[in-house]
């Protein structure tokens, strides 16, 4: 629910925009009994957890996890905190739903190795069978570049033969290859920015570059649900961090006002820099950032904006340029455009783009550029060919077709799930679809039942999500055909009835089927 009255800094068109945008997002709340039963389920399993811990302490049961040695029993306990308790007593019981070994490339369908456990998930053994053609609804394969097509991968093979695999040096020493220059120019022209710099690891792009941009005496305003890499980078920088409620513009404006009026904590001097850190698409919620409002706020209060487009680059926007294109904004409005190549480009690594002065500063001062190995050349060649494919520079229309196919698949999948009666979070354009399961028992049952029907899903539970909101997260890909999506939807329909997952009380009448 948004309150339109607070947005006095937007013009009349902005008000209309904010109102229509809020209708495209939904975070429906489940009925009250669902929350009560979820707490009940967790309570009962916690009681049994205490009971099993008691049996282990008394010695009636062998402890399979790490334990302190007898000589250390008088020291500060290592394994008594809640996280270890939770791991021992709840996570271990349903552990077979995660870390499943796969033995093919993670395209729209993949092969799994069958794995059984004889002692309730403490140890696993592989039976030797392979489960073929499991539909993959968990990989971040938004544009289908995780493919084994010989024609498309020939340039990558040539780059491997020409450059080898490892660079064996950092960017600042001897790791700056011509393929990196080519990649960076291409990334800058793809995004519409002046200049760009690429790094070997997406997580490290955030955690190593935010400390280079801000330091003590600066203020970071970060969204509640930001990714761990952003939080780690913010903490490493030493700047003051204040958190605003997820996608809530009143909360952000209040913090900005307080920051500007109050200044730094004790001295009340003005902040050296105020950096607003948000993501394009939040992968646990499927929500899209309210970029026009944030840009208006940033211009009004003279702050800087750091936009992490890990999930949204290539996946949203009419031609795959990300949230700036989705909202029709100028990319130069965003000060620091960051993204990763892991999700939509089928490679690895990250980039930061922006004004030339910013990127030149980062080339000299980034920790990643100074100490981390440069990106591997075959990976860089894969990104170049994927980006040229999306931009259409290779002469074919495959790229733009994939972007359109992804948008169509996303709309179809979300609309059908809403019709079936599930609670889905997030915006209508986001290819990440979280389906709420709520109860801890249903989390394990759902994942196992979907695997029996040869569909691989990712379920997420307590530490990554709030305790009452366990969910299954689907990632729609442009490589999924309509048949595969229909098969998944059919299985979801059956399982929804059998497990009792259809909590939505909304009648979906408001979604137009646009082409």
């Amino acid at each position: 629910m948004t309150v339109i009255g607070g947005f006095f800094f937007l013009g009349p068109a902005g008000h209309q925009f904010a109102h229509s945008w809020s209708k495209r997002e939904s975070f429906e709340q489940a009925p009250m009994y669902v929350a009560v039963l979820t707490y009940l389920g967790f309570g009962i399993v916690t009681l049994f957890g205490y009971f099993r811990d008691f049996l282990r302490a008394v010695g009636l049961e062998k402890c399979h996890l790490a334990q302190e040695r007898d000589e250390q029993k008088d020291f500060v306990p290592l394994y008594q905190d809640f996280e270890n308790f939770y791991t021992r007593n709840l996570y271990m019981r349903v552990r077979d739903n995660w870390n499943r070994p796969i033995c093919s490339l993670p395209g729209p369908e993949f092969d799994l190795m069958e794995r059984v456990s004889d002692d309730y998930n403490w140890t696993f053994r592989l039976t030797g069978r392979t489960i073929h053609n499991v539909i993959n609804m968990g990989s971040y394969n938004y544009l289908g570049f995780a493919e084994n097509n010989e024609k498309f991968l020939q340039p990558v093979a040539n780059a491997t033969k020409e450059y080898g695999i490892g660079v064996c040096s950092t960017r600042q020493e001897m790791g700056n290859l011509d393929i990196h220059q080519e990649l960076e120019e291409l990334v800058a022209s793809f995004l519409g920015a002046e200049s760009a710099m690429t790094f070997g690891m997406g997580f490290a792009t955030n955690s190593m570059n935010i400390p280079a941009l801000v330091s003590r005496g600066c203020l970071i305003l970060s969204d509640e649900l930001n990714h761990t890499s952003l939080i780690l980078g913010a903490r490493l920088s030493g700047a003051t961090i204040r958190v605003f409620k997820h996608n809530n513009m009143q909360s952000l404006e209040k913090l900005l006002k307080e920051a500007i009026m109050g200044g730094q904590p004790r001295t009340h001097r003005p902040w050296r820099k105020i950096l607003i850190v948000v993501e394009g698409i939040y992968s646990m919620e499927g929500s899209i950032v309210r970029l026009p409002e944030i840009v208006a706020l940033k211009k009004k209060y003279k702050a800087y904006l750091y936009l992490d487009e890990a999930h949204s680059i290539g996946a949203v926007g009419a031609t795959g340029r990300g949230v700036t294109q989705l909202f029709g904004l100028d990319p130069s409005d965003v000060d620091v455009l960051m993204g990763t190549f892991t999700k939509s480009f089928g490679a690895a690594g990250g980039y930061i783009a922006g004004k030339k002065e910013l990127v030149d500063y980062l080339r000299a001062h980034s920790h990643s550029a100074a100490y981390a190995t440069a990106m591997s050349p075959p990976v860089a060649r894969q990104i170049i060919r994927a980006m040229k494919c999306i931009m259409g520079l290779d002469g074919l229309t495959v790229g733009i077709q994939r972007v359109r196919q992804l948008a169509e698949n996303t709309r179809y999948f979300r609309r059908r799930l809403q019709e079936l009666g599930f609670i889905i979070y997030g915006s209508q354009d986001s290819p990440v679809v979280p389906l709420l399961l709520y109860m801890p028992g249903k989390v394990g049952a759902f994942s196992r039942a979907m695997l029996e029907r040869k569909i691989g899903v990712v379920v997420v539970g307590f530490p990554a999500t709030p305790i009452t909101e366990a969910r299954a997260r689907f990632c729609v890909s442009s490589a999924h055909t309509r048949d595969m999506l229909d098969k998944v939807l059919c299985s979801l329909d059956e399982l929804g009835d059998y497990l009792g997952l259809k909590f939505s009380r909304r009648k979906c009448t408001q979604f137009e089927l646009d082409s």
Partner: protein
Amino acid sequence: MDVKNLKEYLHWLYYQYLLITGIYVLEPWEQSIFNTVLLTMVAMIIYTSYVFVPIHVRLALDWFALLVQGRVDHITHLSG
């Protein structure tokens, strides 16, 4: 056919009970412990209500009757 449907329906109900209480994740002997404790509690509740509820209801009705009787006596006393 009806017996088979009934059996499947009961099986589905038991499965829902396992999922909702979270017992589904536990090992079978833990499930047995929980079921035993729960059934014992339910049996005790049923026994207690069988023994005491009729007596309590009767006493409550008697008290209400006394209230009404007392009011009638008061009115006749005033008018008489």
